[in-house]
């Protein structure tokens, strides 16, 4: 099992703008196989993640308009590589604020240093962001100015002791003047609603994202009022699994900064409250090259909270030329190339339900589309975890100061689709 041999970063127009080799150099021409597959797939989303070539295997991911194409020579669990590549992209995101071609090109030296630390001989070495940041400091405007004056470097001269400890995710010697710990409980509703408005499938997926700025080595434990709600949970490595098993308490020494503490699924026995309903009437007339479009969104089971940030996107059939609509609220756009209709609704006020209505122009002569498009809805509800999950308390051990603690709840639409 030899892991990643080389990595190529390729942008959407097919330029290889970065390459890195951990063993012998593999020529760029290996990417031709990838381009071939990309052409065949038409859509970027459909490029197969694993491609076999005569001498190598290519495992790729697509993130933020960049293909990360890794070259593999022998058998390896594909998920291993995929997960690692995503970790690389996450790290870039973390370092440069965005994982874009420009950001990578601008910081090519840091990218190279990072890749060097993350992989040794094709096997992951240091992937924890806290350790990497000790080894290689992320660029900031201030630092680059200072560096250019003093000639100091981005490479940390302190030794990343975290790597040697048994809590590799935390760096040593963290100091804050204000000690804060924030937890965002974010729940997403995945749902498929059928034509008649009944729920075909719905489930709640949640995550707790944390932002911990605590000095020293704090040992936290977070407990819930109703931990039984959590059906399936995955943990950040810092969480002590046994403690969860026995007491349903999340006990951990947190990494420094932002990280995802857990992701969970709410058990499927619980009925999922669907906070919005959609009334829709979409029809295409036979032989008349036009159709009607009429959609209303209303609140439902929203626990007295406001539904906001509502956006509806619809992939209209290919035959649609143009749409002539009026929205009672918000604004809509229709892209005639991608055929995507986007309606930014905003907040729903129950007194006056938002409605989007009008005429659909079809290509003349084209057969009437036989399927109505699905409506993808996004929305947000602040201060509500739709599953009813509640954080009970957060305790800190191991440090003396009193941290500021905050918990925020938010419910969002995940993959929320209404079939029409």
């Amino acid at each position, binding site marked *: 099992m030899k892991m990643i041999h080389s990595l190529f970063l390729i942008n959407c127009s097919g330029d290889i703008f970065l390459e890195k080799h951990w063993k012998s150099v593999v020529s760029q021409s290996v990417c031709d196989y990838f381009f071939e597959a990309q052409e065949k797939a038409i859509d970027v989303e459909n490029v197969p993640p694993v491609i076999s070539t005569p001498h190598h295997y290519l495992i790729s991911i697509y993130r933020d308009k960049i293909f990360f194409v890794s070259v593999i020579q022998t058998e390896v669990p594909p998920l291993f590589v995929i997960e690692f590549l995503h970790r690389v992209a996450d790290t870039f995101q973390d370092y440069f604020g965005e994982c874009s071609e420009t950001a990578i090109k601008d910081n090519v030296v840091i990218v190279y240093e990072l890749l060097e630390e993350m992989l040794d001989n094709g096997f992951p070495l240091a992937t924890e962001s806290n350790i990497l940041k000790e080894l290689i400091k992320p660029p900031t405007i201030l630092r680059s100015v200072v560096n250019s004056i003093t000639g100091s470097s981005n490479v940390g001269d302190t030794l990343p002791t975290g790597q040697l400890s048994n809590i590799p995710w935390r760096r040593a010697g963290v100091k804050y003047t204000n000690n804060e710990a924030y937890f965002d409980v974010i729940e997403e509703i995945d749902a498929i609603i059928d034509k008649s408005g009944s729920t075909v499938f719905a489930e709640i997926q949640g995550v707790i994202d944390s932002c911990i700025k605590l000095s020293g080595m704090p040992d936290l434990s977070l407990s819930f009022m109703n931990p039984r709600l959590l059906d399936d949970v995955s943990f950040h490595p810092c969480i002590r699994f046994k403690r969860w098993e026995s007491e349903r308490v999340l006990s951990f020494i947190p990494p420094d900064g932002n990280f995802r503490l857990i992701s969970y699924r709410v058990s499927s026995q619980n009925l999922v409250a669907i906070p919005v309903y959609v009334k829709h009437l979409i029809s295409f007339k036979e032989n008349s090259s036009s159709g009607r479009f009429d959609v209303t969104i209303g609140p439902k089971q929203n626990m007295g909270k406001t539904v906001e940030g509502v956006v509806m996107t619809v*992939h209209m059939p290919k035959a649609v030329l143009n749409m002539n609509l009026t929205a009672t609220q918000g604004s809509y756009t229709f892209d005639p190339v991608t055929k995507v209709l986007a309606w930014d609704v905003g907040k729903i006020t129950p007194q006056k339900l938002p409605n989007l209505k009008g005429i659909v122009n079809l290509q003349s002569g084209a057969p009437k589309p036989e399927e109505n498009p699905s409506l993808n809805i996004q929305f947000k509800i602040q201060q509500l975890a739709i599953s009813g999950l509640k954080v009970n308390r957060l305790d800190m051990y191991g440090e003396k100061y009193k941290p500021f603690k905050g918990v925020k709840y938010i419910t969002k639409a995940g993959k929320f689709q209404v079939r029409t």
Partner: protein
Amino acid sequence: MSGNGIGYGEQGGEVAPELAQEAAPTTAPSVPAAFGLFSSDTKKNEDLKQMLESSKDSAKLDAMKRIVGMIAKGKNASELFPAVVKNVASKNIEIKKLVYVYLMRYAEEQQDLALLSISTFQRALKDPNQLIRASALRVLSSIRVPIIVPIMMLAIKEASSDLSPYVRKNAAHAIQKLYSLDPEQKEMLIEVIEKLLRDRSTLVAGSVVMAFEEVCPDRIDLIHKNYRKLCNLLVDVEEWGQVVIIHMLTRYARTQFVSPWKTDEDVGDEYNENNFYESDEEQKEKDRKVKKTYTMDPDHRLLLRNTKPLLQSRNAAVVMAVAQLYWHLAPKSEAGIISKSLVRLLRSNREVQYIVLQNIATMSIQRKGMFEPYLKSFYVRSTDPTMIKTLKLEIMTNLANEANISTLLREFQTYVKSQDKQFAAATIQAIGRCATNISEVTDTCLNGLVCLLSNRDEIVVAESVVVIKKLLQTQPAHHGEIIKHMAKLLDNITVPVARASILWLIGEYCERVPKIAPDVLRKTAKSFTNEDDLVKLQILNLGAKLYLTNSKQTKLLTQYVLNLGKYDQSYDIRDRTRFIRQLIVPNEKSGALSKYAKKIFLAQKPAPLLESPFKDRDHFQLGTLSHTLNSRATGYLELSDWPEVAPDPAVRNVEVAESAKEWTAILSKTKKEKPTEKFYSESEEEEEDSASTSATESESGSESEKERKEESSSNESSESSSSTGVSSDSESEESTEKKTSGAAEESDSEDIKKKAKEISKSRSTFSSSDTESSSSEESSSNSKSESDSNNDSDTEKSRNATSSKKGEKTVQGRKAPNKQDVFLLDLDDFYPVTTPVAVPAAAILSPSLTADLEGLSLSGSPVIDVTTQVFVPTKMHEMLHRMTGKGLSAHYQFSRQPCIFGDRMVSVQVTLTNTSDQKIENIHIGEKKLPPGMRMHEFNPIECLEPERSVTVSMGIDFCDSTQTASFQLCTKDDHFNVNIQPPVGELLLPVTMSEKDFKKEQGMLTGMNETSATIDVAPQNSTSRVITERLMKAANLGVVPSGQDKIHRFAAKTVHSGSLMLVTVELKESSTAQLIINTEKTVIGSVLLRELKPVLSQG
């Protein structure tokens, strides 16, 4: 396997072709500006060279950054090699790092010049800083220059016994690099791997297993002794290492354990042969018995249990690895737990979804039940990429059954209308498969498909035709109407496959549509020349079939078609035409075959099986690249079938475990009055049963077992091993907390319980105030430890009493003479503190596992030869009384662990308690008055100690193997107190394991001057081996040497500072006396020890 990229490698080694390649890039779009840059490049490089030679670091750094930029873009920067390599010894870390980057990229091409840099790395390999050592090794081993192979080999060897686990980790990485550079080194590298596999650091584990998989995956024998350790370490290994270890253990387990699936299926087969002469009745009984008595090997269970928590990992690769492990190793009833986690991964990004869905597809064919509850999770969204949609569809089809088919078909109806036509076509195939698999819905599906024939989209219609054709073939009886309908479609459909399908159908069932068939032939004959090859062949077929059944009407038409075919451009069609003509048109040349023409053409044809494309993937291990590609990838390691008979499980016992058996044997003699049955719960007896059945059923495995049985009078040996397993299981659950909870687990007698509580209490306070160390674990274990002790105390009291004995003796046990096990002892503060009398950890742990569990922490210093300490005296020595200390009291005790601060130091734990009502600030060590040579490692200053709190800190003192007092000042913010630590001679030792033979050999060399002896009185109650061991261990930190003679007890240790051997022998004589002999080079210590040990056994 090796790293030479034959296909695309630019391994020219010369500069010229490299440049040429640069000028003419291999991929046109990638380096569009290359031509323009070529001329300017050389000039640019000139100024880069100048910058590199400048004296200013900033210029050098700038140049290096630009060079790295060039490398990143794939431009050639090799000609700068000489200028760059000079900077390898730069003081500036960033320059240095960038030079490393450059070196790794170009060293292979500039081998001679690269050699210039080697000495720098060689020097860095000796650096006191572990991170520098590690990075030097990393770069050195990444320079692919064959000439330095010997240097690399040497460096790896040295690094593999480095004190720092981080360096050892890098050594493991370097093994693979060296192996790919020079496979000749394999044998030597295997030795290093073998050594590193014994390492107990979680940092090393993943990397060394990686190296193992790379270099010698077939040397499964290297794993045996490390199997349990790896299982136990697994949770704490970093995520990437977990994946590698899990995959390796999966392969391992398939060679070492018997199938757990047999109980689910029929076990009978093999027994039928064995019991040839037995009557059916008996056989059945046997079968039933076997079914009942299949018990999983405890090691097998250990693996399953320890991997299960990893299903909760955030890393998809780890979850998948565990899932495949359960799929390939767990009893079928248990594999179900993985489905939930796999379904969870479907929320992840599309690449992960793709791989996971593929694996679920394979699983869902074999075991529908696993994923049935999650059916709805596979429902397709219009926004999914097509490849995800089709995979989901595949899984839904696999999961379809009578109960859910109606829901599924309704769902499919939505899909058929999808704008994504490729997906719609796949849905139609799925409907077809459901129709053949579930006979209840065949007609419904068929009708539905026929409706689709009038669909506007041609792809949909064509796919429907193909599927209908297949369906009709399975039940052609009453479908004349459909065939007619399809015949009509022929006018409109253009998709070749569909046309061909219709033609085939009409030909096959031409007798059912006698009027239409000839007409179809007429029409197609007209369009023959414009048809696709596929359709042409079917026209010929149709003609032939009609000629045979209805020659009156179609004779001419057929001949016309055959004539067209004769001059077709495709030789395939010409061949077919010739063949058909010879067969059906009778002439003088046609042989006997034409008589059978009708039989040949109109034979009953078997209906096609509509199968999942994932059907044949199950022979690949799940989660592998080969499985994803459905073809063997290079380097794929086959998963072997379960062995019929499990290989000897004893190979996994670590040496100490072996001596366990002997000790139990001895114990059982001494404690005969106690019936053994009572000590063990039923389940264990069952296991014993199974152990014996397996022993009888397996020829090979039984021998060793028998031998063991003969050794011990009772069944003790097998029993002890099975109880080992059970107890180990229960322990392994705690493995994450083992570092801490150990102390609290002791639960036997009242006072010990109290002590334990005291300790854990004092520790919890410690943890709350400690700022530096990983105190966290502590708090979690406190509450747990309470419950643990409760559980144990009553029911298993008696058992603990005995097994504790076993434990204590076995841990220190004997070792095979030549094998030096590296025990990397855990030196964490939370090391399980054990007390005499009851030996807690060992009592619950199996002997072999204790050793495994002990070194689980990350930090560690290799102390070769030294075993674990067995007793840790709880005796606290007073250092500072609270009266003199103005409220601060201090006690010290010897933890008997190898010291973390230096391997010549004795580790001392100091407990500081604040008995005043004020807080005491800044407790630290002040002036030290140490005798010459003595060194002391102080504890970190304690900022503040609240009233009524106490803190335990550890320090290390090198006493230079003398009992001289270490005096120093203990200071607080306001005061300082003079305190002393005086070590009892017994604490200046570290236990050593050796065999009896070795002991005698060593003893033989330490006679005369080096031997001191005395005759002592032994109180009668002290004459049992247990008491003797116990008492001696309490007095001195000794290791037990297993003894073959009842009357002679031997103990071995070495002095902490100089490492000289210290051999103690107690030989019981008549009339309550014994001879106490001590052999050592350190005669002074020897005689002091003798004096100390003398009274130990005579006291009542």
